[in-house]
């Protein structure tokens, strides 16, 4: 089955980012297709490569990056939510006149249309958030 995931909560905020990762792993293990993972609201904070959690803690962003690399996942960050929270890729940094970008490998920045498309194209949309 074709599934998409919506993550509305930041990492280390409560548990939803962790739940979303565990659910995505379990769905892939069962042979389902993950059409897209969309990060909205504080969920965009899952996609900064500048976060450095303590070494004995899980690194949620790295887990997403690894999962995306191994399974060719489409991790999409909402552009408006990202701009509010200082999540930038190279293009956006240039466009906004900022001195650097911080998006993690495996993520891309795009618009809400990508969420709508995921809802239309997927058999199920599962939402994780606060």
């Amino acid at each position, binding site marked *: 089955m074709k599934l998409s995931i919506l993550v509305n909560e930041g990492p280390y905020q409560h548990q939803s980012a962790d739940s979303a990762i565990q659910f995505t792993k*379990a*769905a892939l293990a*069962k042979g389902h297709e993950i059409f897209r993972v969309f990060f909205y609201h504080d969920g965009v904070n899952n996609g900064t490569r500048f976060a450095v959690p303590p070494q004995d803690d899980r690194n949620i962003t790295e887990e997403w990056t690894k999962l995306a690399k191994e399974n060719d996942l489409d991790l999409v960050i909402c552009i408006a939510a990202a701009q509010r929270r200082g999540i930038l890729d190279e293009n956006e940094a240039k466009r906004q006149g900022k001195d650097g970008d911080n998006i993690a490998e495996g993520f891309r920045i795009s618009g809400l249309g990508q969420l709508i498309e995921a809802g239309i194209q997927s058999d199920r949309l599962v939402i994780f958030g606060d």
Partner: protein
Amino acid sequence: MPMLHTVNKSPFERRTLDTALRHAVKGSGVLLIEDAVYAAFEGTVVAEKVRAALGDLKIYVLGPDIAARGMSEKQVIDGLEVVDYGGFVDLVTEYDKVQSWL
């Protein structure tokens, strides 16, 4: 329409379990994840409400989130089904739609 409702907040913190139980029609499933697993245990003020809902609804609870809170599956109300993440995925595919009460 019967569907899967997921609840992720403790019933002692928010009212989303009540909302989900009120909206879920006969034949629906309710899956308790994250802090909502506290609704699944015997001996709380919400236990009777959960037990009463079992007539029309199937109620599931995520086992790893019980363990993560140092609770035991032995304390879970009779009639609730404990599932793992694989079971969560199966429920999502078995029901036509998923409504996440956040």
